[in-house]
């Protein structure tokens, strides 16, 4: 009698295709995955606990370190939640600049994704092309924020400072050029037979399954579900911009790839509109004097402003009691912050709703019944960042 025995192998935590420190226990029948159990937490730093010991302004710096490929989107989500709690209105110029930063950051994050995902599946050239454009974006963002990885530039009430004059011409040149670059990536991958064979009909998720697993972002939209926070709950003036939400049909890895590439074109459109229509005005809600520190010029002229600045920076502010949730569509899915305030100058509880964490929960479902080599493709297709999963 032949006996069926499964072999258990360990993948990660140090494995180049797990995009960080993800460990998977795979139970294999030959080369077919029977069961997969993800183990996470290797990068846990206790961000939610740390936030409870910092003032609202200080806690902002923690958010950069969640999804470290899109620091500005994380800043935005956090600031939106605190601003909702404080009930303050942000000036249009700041809102448009926030949209511009968030979309540039999405482009940078998607470029990393297309580069590493293709590299995982053996297409190395894409990496060199994608990193070239990512460099252009990061240099432009560095010009404004002074940082490539941890900007902390979007602040509660607006922005840290206004953009320099050289920024907009750079961005304009980039958005004119970028659609042609996406065409280049497409010539490398979209009709590539090897690429199609590795990605089509692999790790298929139906729309209902995705919703049941709580999956959001491009993975959900690749399964044909129309859900994007930018359209469902518009924030930061997204309703002023003209853009579409690309959807897939089958919900396989190839569709996720197509959806993300189309999304990049849409983001480019949004950035273009934001550059063209950028209004003049203040870059922060300086009229909310209790919560937003005064502008630098005011601090050096007015003693009252100096005192206020000192107080907000030193002691922080005391928001009303209550609980709020605000979210943005980050490059990975819905990134939300749930903040409970007890009236103190520090958050009573700050819960982060990380898209990668929830999406990774669906990974066993995606890979069971597929080959070991497809595991690598599936992990790449959800676009996880462990900094956000483990927090």
């Amino acid at each position: 009698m032949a006996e069926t025995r499964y072999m258990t192998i360990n993948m990660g935590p140090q494995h180049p295709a797990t995009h960080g420190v993800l460990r998977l226990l795979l139970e294999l029948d030959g080369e077919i995955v029977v069961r997969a159990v993800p183990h996470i937490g290797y990068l846990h730093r206790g961000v939610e606990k740390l936030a409870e010991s910092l003032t609202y302004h200080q806690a902002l710096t923690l958010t950069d370190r969640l999804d470290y490929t899109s620091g500005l989107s994380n800043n935005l989500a956090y600031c939106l939640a605190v601003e909702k709690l404080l009930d303050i209105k942000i000036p249009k110029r700041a809102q448009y600049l926030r949209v511009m930063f968030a979309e540039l950051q999405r482009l940078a994050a998607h470029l990393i994704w297309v580069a590493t995902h293709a590299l995982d599946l053996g297409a190395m050239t894409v990496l060199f092309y994608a990193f070239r454009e990512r460099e252009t974006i990061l240099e432009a963002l560095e010009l404004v924020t002074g940082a490539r990885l941890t900007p902390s530039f979007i602040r509660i009430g607006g922005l840290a400072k206004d953009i320099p004059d050289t920024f907009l011409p750079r961005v304009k040149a980039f958005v004119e050029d970028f659609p042609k670059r996406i065409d280049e990536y497409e010539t490398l991958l979209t009709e590539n037979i090897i690429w199609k064979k590795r990605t089509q009909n692999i790790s298929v998720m139906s729309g209902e399954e995705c919703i049941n697993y709580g999956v959001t972002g491009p993975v959900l939209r690749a399964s044909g579900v129309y859900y994007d926070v930018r359209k469902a709950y518009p924030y930061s003036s997204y309703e002023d911009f003209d853009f579409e939400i690309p959807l897939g049909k089958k919900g396989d890895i190839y569709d996720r790839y197509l959806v993300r590439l189309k999304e990049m074109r849409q983001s480019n459109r949004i950035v273009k509109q934001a550059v063209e229509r950028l209004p003049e005005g203040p870059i922060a809600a300086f009229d909310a004097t209790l919560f937003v520190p005064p502008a630098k010029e005011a601090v050096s002229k007015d003693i009252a402003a100096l005192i206020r600045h000192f107080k907000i920076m030193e002691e922080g502010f005391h928001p009303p009691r209550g609980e709020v949730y605000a979210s943005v569509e980050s490059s990975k899915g819905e990134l939300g912050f749930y903040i409970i305030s007890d009236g103190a100058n520090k958050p009573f509880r700050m819960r982060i709703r990380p898209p990668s964490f929830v999406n990774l929960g669906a990974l066993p479902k995606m890979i069971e019944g597929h080959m070991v080599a497809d595991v690598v493709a599936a992990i790449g297709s959800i676009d996880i960042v462990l900094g956000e999963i483990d927090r």
Partner: protein
Amino acid sequence: MQRNVPELLREKFPQATLKVEEFRGETTITVGREKIRDVMLFLKENENLLYDLLLDLSGVDYGDEIPRFGVSYLLHSMRFNDRLRIKIRVAEGASLDTVSDVWRAADWMEREAYDMFGIAFDSHPDLRRILMEEDFTGYPLRKDFPLKGADFSKPFTVCLEEEK
């Protein structure tokens, strides 16, 4: 389509619907612990509600309040495009029913609430720690857990003395 979610819930579960709050345009309904599964199934399956996406599940430690813990569920309805927060209060040592069979998304989220707060979920398929290591003791997000962790309370000079 207009619908009044708290009203629908009150009609169906008059005893279990404890409190309805509105803050900054968000609706929070506090529900009794015993009825959680019935309420959640109703919210997901009733054709006027259809909350099919569990966006978030979050544990909360209220410190000195009684009952001490809380669990907040954030739901989204694809059909009606709105959000609803359901809140449940749990006493220390008590447990509540899992909703991981209503929404699979709750599987990992409940594990995290268990890991961070020690809130137990009955009949959860795989209630293990998720972010902390399996032999970890204590629940990090509880208010009485030291910020630096339990091992760091000793001053460095004391550690040096002990080494000698």
